């Protein structure tokens, strides 16, 4: 599988892939210290999306993607991600939890 070069495209496609099949999609991060390389992979066993970088700048973006996937996986795929990507996630938290319990 070819690496995706655009970060925004990678984020969009991985979230789409996960939402299409939440039960079999996994998100893998591989870090190799001696080569200073970071590879992110999201796959549902049919399609595989990968992103590679050696820039510490990109690690910060990865942190945001980590947050997206933690939220999607711990709370469910139907969660509204605008809260996670925005900075005011702590304020919006209680309302979100309430909604989760009702289901």
């Amino acid at each position, binding site marked *: 599988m070819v690496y995706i070069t655009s970060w925004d495209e990678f984020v969009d496609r991985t979230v789409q892939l996960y939402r299409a099949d939440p039960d079999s999609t*996994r*998100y893998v*991060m*591989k870090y190799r210290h*001696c080569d*200073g390389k970071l590879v992110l992979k999201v796959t549902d066993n049919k399609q595989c999306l990968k992103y590679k970088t050696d*820039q510490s700048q990109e690690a910060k973006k990865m*942190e945001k993607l980590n947050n997206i996937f*933690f939220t999607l*996986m711990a709370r469910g795929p139907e969660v509204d991600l605008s809260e996670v990507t925005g900075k005011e996630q702590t304020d919006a938290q209680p309302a979100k939890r309430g909604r989760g319990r009702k289901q």
Partner: protein
Amino acid sequence: MVLLQLDPFLNELTSLFERSTEKGSVWVTLKRSSLKSKVQRNKLATAGEAIEYRCLIRATDGKKTISTSVGPKDHQRFQASYATILKAHMTALKKRERKDKKKSAEADKREGSSKRPKKALKV
């Protein structure tokens, strides 16, 4: 593979990173899971009960595997500690080159400004 509590997992993750600095890689996988077998899931489904999902986190260096799971209540806390560990250990990644240029430009300015007063004093 045993499921660890959150804090022991984070400690183990730290040592995985520390052990792989000279050679080797660390993999961390996130997956949504109910942590139940298919039979159990089917039972719940036929009983009409909702299946509770959690986020399963597995980490390995190719030899040792550790795992933990976070639910909707504790994922935010875990997320923060996890990000801190990553930041502390992903030090081999390259810094942006632009910053260096800025620094050197600033250094030039300082030298330039410090020279002028000196000249003024001499005169």
